């Protein structure tokens, strides 16, 4: 359990560092990628491409292993179907992301800047997650 927690912390550290190095912590740069008819900044595409190299490699290694290093099984969803919840959720997320240029990872990383705007966004994001949990996401009402 201790090794697993340590691995989670280390993964988080790498993730946060990656967001700063790639400058994805900056909403203006994300918005400049999304603004395809404006002064387009392709950075986000290189970040995605760069991330997919080690990530794809890890998922390939995963196929040859029965268990991860510090747990007795993998928790990776398989054979999921595209449903209304997936599409609806992606639409709502895309709207929120496009409005200010912050998605969960960069928002949490940007808390280090000490800006009240970021803290407000993160608080609202958690409030949204609670709202989901209390409504459509409550244990008895899993929609398909």
């Amino acid at each position, binding site marked *: 359990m201790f090794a*697993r927690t340590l691995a989670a912390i280390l993964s988080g550290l790498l993730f946060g560092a990656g967001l700063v*190095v790639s400058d994805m912590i900056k909403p203006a740069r994300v918005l400049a990628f999304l*603004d395809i008819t404006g002064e387009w900044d392709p950075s986000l595409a290189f970040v995605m491409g760069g991330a997919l190299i080690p990530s794809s490699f890890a998922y390939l290694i995963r196929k040859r292993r029965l268990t991860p290093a510090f747990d007795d099984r993998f928790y990776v969803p398989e054979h999921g179907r595209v449903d209304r919840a997936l599409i609806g959720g992606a639409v709502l997320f895309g709207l929120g992301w496009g409005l200010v240029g912050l998605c969960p990872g960069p928002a949490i990383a940007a808390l280090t800047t000490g800006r009240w705007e970021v803290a407000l966004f993160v608080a609202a994001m958690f409030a949204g997650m609670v709202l989901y949990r209390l409504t459509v996401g409550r244990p008895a009402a899993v929609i398909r």
Partner: protein
Amino acid sequence: MTDLNILWPLSGGLLIGLSAGLYLLTTGRIAGVSGLAASAAGLTGTGISTLGLGFLGGIPAGAALASAFLRQAEITLTASAPLLVVAGLLVGVGTRLGSGCTSGHGVCGLARLSKRSLVATSVFMIVAALTVFAVRHVFEGIV
């Protein structure tokens, strides 16, 4: 944005991918920040997750370290408070309903060739681009 140097986004992306790969091969789980955030807050029905808390705490710490030693993290945000709240709520509800965000569906889902993640990533990218278009070029100055 004229200071484009692909080495920065590429190396930052590699770090993010390393993080996702490390997390998968050590804990067996997907490094999706929205899911980790929900599990850290005890909103996934399995109590408060230590892994979620660890990962989530690591993010700002890693960002602070990188900002101190590698590249200064400075951000500008012009969105008003009500807009930040609306956007935050949409991101919170949307990522839970859609089971993931840019990291879970984008980085991890695409890496494992998940059809659901490919669909989700395409949808949120297109909707976000349309939203930016509407805000910047259609309703300019209103939002």
